[in-house]
């Protein structure tokens, strides 16, 4: 009866752990799975599979990377990880049972599973590392039934060496368990295996081109860390935009309450896609231009490199979209990133560079999950819809060549507008860029040049508020006032705002409630930090 009860407790705890693990990773951390899936490029080609032999732990890495592809599907990431951790736990329990620790083995298994789950909070920690551990435990369980002493010796040596080849650092699990069981069996002299276990990686590191630290921890030992909900929030915005859900991006950005350039970046991107950037700009945290563009360069954080190409792609600035995507691809953990390869294919299709586009489409054609996407974009096989989308994007391209640094945003935007005054996104981004920098004089010039002269009039309240600042500051003539046809209501508000401002000696508190979302308030009270 007692045994039965204990069994029920065990199953109960396991079921709770499983549900908790699945729920946490699915409902609070699921965008990390998309990131991990996108941060690799698993090809079903002999040379790619062959490349796994260039490093230790080829079996763990091959299996881990292959299965990571399926994180692509919703719910799959949490399900795969939970299942993998359960397998790890089961093997852990069975291994400790062999030591006669039946009473504690379940608890130990739960501890191992939990620690490994914590390692997965890191966006760069791969499933391969968990598989490496599973491999180590599996080797030990394979070793246990061997009866004859000579065979045990041979198996211990072979498993230690081949264990490293197959499972990398996971082979140390086998070694330590082996030492433990030998201590229990008072079979001390087999502990010399430890020497082989440490010599093997160091001996092979020249072939694998690893530092000695890497050679002992390959494919990555992980670390205990808190869940990074900030990264999760950024990844959620990034992926929802990628999936084509701008409304959800806006909702998530507002809900996140995070004052981060990356969050503002996605908020602004989602708004501009819907044509509402100007109207919503000041309803959200704006860290000057950093909410409009991500800085591009090798010293920027990976996440910024990863998301940076989105705005350039939407603007039609494809040289920088390509540059940014290549950077993200280069700095991805495996130096290959399927989402960036897709972006590079799109960029080159729009640029009409068929041979370059085919390079990337061929790569994607050799994947399991992006084959269809690639096939539908191969020139001469494109659907009407895709052809139209490409043609639409082509209209945004620069027509004249200029040279600029990647972070010279106004020049980039003006050049795009010069080539195509209908580029709505570029126009809103340029005007908002000027406004966020409080550069009223540039704003006025850009407004005149790209709105008035090209008859792409922008009647958004924020632009009119900014023009009022210019007109008032310049003591403009009546003619000039009339040129901008600013409604009476906004003029009245402006006069009222000025009156309160002057009456309170520039104290913002008196204005905040009524005018806190106006450009006048931003212009007077927002502080700009360079950097």
């Amino acid at each position: 009866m007692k045994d039965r009860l204990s069994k029920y407790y065990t199953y109960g705890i396991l079921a709770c752990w499983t549900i908790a693990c699945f729920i946490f990773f699915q409902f609070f951390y699921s965008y990390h799975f998309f990131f991990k899936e996108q941060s690799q490029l698993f090809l079903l080609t002999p040379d790619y599979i062959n490349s796994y032999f260039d490093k230790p732990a080829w079996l763990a890495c091959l299996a881990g990377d292959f299965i990571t592809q399926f994180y692509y599907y919703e719910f799959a990431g949490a399900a795969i990880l939970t299942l993998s951790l359960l397998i790890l736990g089961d093997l852990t329990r069975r291994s400790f049972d062999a030591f006669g620790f039946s009473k504690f083995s379940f608890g130990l298994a739960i501890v191992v599973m939990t620690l490994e789950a914590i390692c997965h909070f890191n966006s760069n920690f791969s499933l391969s590392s968990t598989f490496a551990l599973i491999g180590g435990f599996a080797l030990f369980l394979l070793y246990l039934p061997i009866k004859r002493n000579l065979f045990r010796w041979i198996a211990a040596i072979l498993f230690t060496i081949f264990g490293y080849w197959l499972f990398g650092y996971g082979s140390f699990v086998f070694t330590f368990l082996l030492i433990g069981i030998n201590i229990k069996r008072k079979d001390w002299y087999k502990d010399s295996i430890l020497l082989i276990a440490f010599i093997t990686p160091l001996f092979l590191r020249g072939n694998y081109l690893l530092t000695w630290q890497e050679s002992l921890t390959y494919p990555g030992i992980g670390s205990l860390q808190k869940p990074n909900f900030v990264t999760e929030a950024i990844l959620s915005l990034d992926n929802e935009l990628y999936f084509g859900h701008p409304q959800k991006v806006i909702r998530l950005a507002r809900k996140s309450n995070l004052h981060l350039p990356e969050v503002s970046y996605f908020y602004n991107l989602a708004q501009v896609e819907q044509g509402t950037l100007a109207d919503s700009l000041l309803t959200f945290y704006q860290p000057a231009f950093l909410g409009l563009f991500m800085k591009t360069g090798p010293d920027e954080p990976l996440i910024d490199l990863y998301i940076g190409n989105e705005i350039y792609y939407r603007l039609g600035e494809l040289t920088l979209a390509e540059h940014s995507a290549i950077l993200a691809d280069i700095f991805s953990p495996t130096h290959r990133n399927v989402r960036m390869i897709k972006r590079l294919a799109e960029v080159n299709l729009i640029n009409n560079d068929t041979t370059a586009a085919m390079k990337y489409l061929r790569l994607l054609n050799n994947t399991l999950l992006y084959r269809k996407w690639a096939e539908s974009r191969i020139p001469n096989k494109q659907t009407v819809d895709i052809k139209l989308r490409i043609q639409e994007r082509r209209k945004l391209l620069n027509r004249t060549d200029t040279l600029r640094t990647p972070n010279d945003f106004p020049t980039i935007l003006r050049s795009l507008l010069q080539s195509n005054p209908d580029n709505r996104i570029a126009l809103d981004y340029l005007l908002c860029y000027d406004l966020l920098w409080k550069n009223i004089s540039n704003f006025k010039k850009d407004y005149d040049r790209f709105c008035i002269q090209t008859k792409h009039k922008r009647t958004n309240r924020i632009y009119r508020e900014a023009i009022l600042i210019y007109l008032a500051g310049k003591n403009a003539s009546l003619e000039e006032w009339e040129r901008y046809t600013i409604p009476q209501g906004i003029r009245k508000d402006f006069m009222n705002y000025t009156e309160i401002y002057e009456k309170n000696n520039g104290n913002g508190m008196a204005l905040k409630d009524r005018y806190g979302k106006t450009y006048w308030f931003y212009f007077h009270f927002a502080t700009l930090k360079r950097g």
Partner: protein
Amino acid sequence: MKRLIRYATLEVLILLIGCTPRPANIKDIATPPPIYPDYTDITIPCNIAPLNFLLRNEADAVEVTAQYGGKILKINCKGNEVCFPIREWKALMQFATGKEVSVRVIAHVNGRWLQYLPFRWQVTADKIDPFMSYRLIEPGYEVWNAIQLKQRDIENFDETTIADYHLVNNACMNCHIYGNQNPNLSLFYVRGKGGGTVLNRNGKLRKLELKNKQTISTGVYGSFHPSGRFGVFSSNIIIPIFHAVDSKRLEVYDTKSDVFVADFDHNRIFSCAQLSDSTVLETFPTFSADGKYIYFCSARIIKLPEKIKKLKYSLCRISFNAAKGTFGTKVDTLVNARLTRRSVCHPKVSPDGKWILYTVADYGTFLIWHREADLQMMNLQTGAINPLKIVNSNRSDTYHSWSSTSRWFVFASKRDDGVYGKPYFCYIDKQGNVHKPFVLPQKHPSFYDHTLKSFNIPELSTGPLPFNAIDIEQWMKHTQAEKFH
């Protein structure tokens, strides 16, 4: 049990037979086979690795027959990839040296066996140097990650790593260059903290700080004196900048550049007024085959980047006295950019001293994204220029180096996809005729489709290098750089 084994064996046999389908009811078509890489009608050295290729169509089985006289190499493959067994390939090459091999391709496409027009391989007895070094880098160029310097045995598919960024604190590395195509005379530069120029001379490694107070940077582009005692280098202040239209992507220009000579015996750097004029950009220096001249490129400093399209380099030379360590006073202009209205870069003199090979483009100094960048070759005895029409493509063709025999050169070309550079070999016969180039063969013919690395600065050599990546790791870690004055 026996029956089970018998059935299993039968199954395996059926599978094996299934792997090698044979042609039947063949239909002749009057087009060349759509093979990649393009190995049709080329001249190849007798010591080259098998020219494995694939068919760029729906082929699901291929039969290839390569034949000279009575020697036939026939293979049947499932899928669209053709990989020759190396031993049979070597035998065919040996037998057909100096002769022409005819290659016939029959492919099973959409349920039909199609026989394409045959093509030929002219196998020349002029061997290519058997080793080649190159840098593998993503085509971002102003950034790096996972850079490696590699060495490839061209006679087979063996590739070794000579330096790995991982093992040198994730530092960027400049390309590896040889002196006289000699594996015991080479150098490359490791950037960053603890970096320096790694000189391999007579099998001994040294780490050098190749700059002094007068130089504007450490050595960037360089070349060895035939004696191995001197190296000539440019020092450059390099600025990367982006184009707005797609085709050229990245432009890189120098705001300053000079040329200097380094004496490796006495750790001394020296130059002359003609090579370090502050109003002129001097770069891409290289010694002549006899070491009596330094060839270099030079352009007047103009306002950059605004006038980048007017930045055109001329090909010049100045005499050099190795015994005294002195320069001549007169600079000869071999190709005048003002007259040709094109920019000359990367001159390299052939080991026999007969030719100088260089790249020309509309403007600038960094030509890897210039589609119009082409190779040209000047006969140094007559001054005649060969535009190398058969060699060049409509994408960037640049970064070349000679084989020790002067019969072959290798260059990096972006002709396949416009983004990733690959090493192409080109043959020059005794009469000076150049032949159609071909890309470095790979074990898996789809290799170039799947790699995301460019082959940067391919350089040929007569043998394997006497060091590897682990030697470099240890050397960089434990050695102080020797100062130059």
